[in-house]
């Protein structure tokens, strides 16, 4: 229940900030990011014998449309999944939003921005930073799960065992997350870097493009 309150607060705040910061013309991008995350979350990929992983999408969404619209977009995905696809319980929605949208989204974006400061300002850096940030965001989310499990979980398994198992498998899941995130961000950056929150400083090939100057307000 506590996670529900935290998530509701986080998403409420994000909604407010998204309203201020998302340029009007980028609303369709936020919609696209939500739809894309929905689709790719369906694509479970095998990570080890008898185990699969799927995209969380938090880092991807926040790199694409910023920390506020990004977390809201992934939260929308989780609500649609819970209400229409019976995936993710209604009572678990708060926890899911926290672990799939807010924590990986904000931690992933922070790592991404930190890496971009250290790397040269070009497309390759954006792609590399996306990969690493998305990978680590999954490991961080898995770690956050273990903290929640330790604090309020109803299972009986020892926390240490759960920690080792979760981090191990989610490092592998993170490789997939990193790959998908890097490919997606890379694809959009190659056509319109100005539409990517984490790459809007990169100028498109053409020198003077009037509507690019509008940017995020």
């Amino acid at each position, binding site marked *: 229940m506590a996670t529900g309150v935290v998530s509701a607060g986080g998403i409420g705040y994000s909604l407010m900030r998204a309203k201020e910061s998302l340029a009007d013309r980028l609303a369709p991008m936020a919609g696209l990011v939500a739809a894309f995350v929905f689709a790719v979350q*369906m*694509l479970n*990929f095998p990570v080890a014998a008898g185990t699969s992983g799927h995209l969380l999408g938090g880092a991807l969404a926040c790199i694409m449309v910023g920390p506020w619209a990004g977390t809201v977009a992934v939260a929308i995905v989780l609500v649609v999944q819970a*209400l229409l696809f019976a995936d993710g319980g209604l009572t678990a929605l708060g926890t899911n939003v926290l672990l799939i949208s807010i924590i990986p989204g904000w931690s992933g974006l922070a790592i991404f921005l930190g890496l971009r400061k250290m790397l040269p300002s070009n497309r390759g850096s954006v792609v590399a930073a996306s990969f690493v940030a998305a990978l680590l965001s999954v490991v961080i989310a898995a770690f956050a799960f273990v903290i929640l499990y330790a604090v309020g*979980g109803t299972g009986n398994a020892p926390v240490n065992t759960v920690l080792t198992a979760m981090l191990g498998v989610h490092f592998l899941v993170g490789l997939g997350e990193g790959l998908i995130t890097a490919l997606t961000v890379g694809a959009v950056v190659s056509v319109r870097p100005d539409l990517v929150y984490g790459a809007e400083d990169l100028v498109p090939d053409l020198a003077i493009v009037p509507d690019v100057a509008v940017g995020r307000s």
Partner: protein
Amino acid sequence: MTRKGLTAVVIGGLIVASGLAFFVSPLASSSPDGLEKVATDEGFIDTAEDHDLADGPLADYGVQGVDDRSLSTGLSGVIGVAITFGVALVLFGIFHSRRDGSRAERDARSPAAG
């Protein structure tokens, strides 16, 4: 290189998303995901409860009444992509109109600022 418009990028992205949902999702691994696997191994999968809406028309990524499993999964994916895009567009679009309104009011109050 021709510059792609925003609409072209969004439509292209939606086509990719729908394509992944329709053609690739039926091929996705049905093994338990990372969390489910750990929960099973460590014996806390039982703490999950049955879903209240498990009988819905799209429950568990299938379209009720479509017997072909791949088709059912694929269709549910495309429907999900469309619904998610629609919901997000409406939500983010509301900001658009509201913000335009408040900006217009602000401009009206202080014409000198323009």
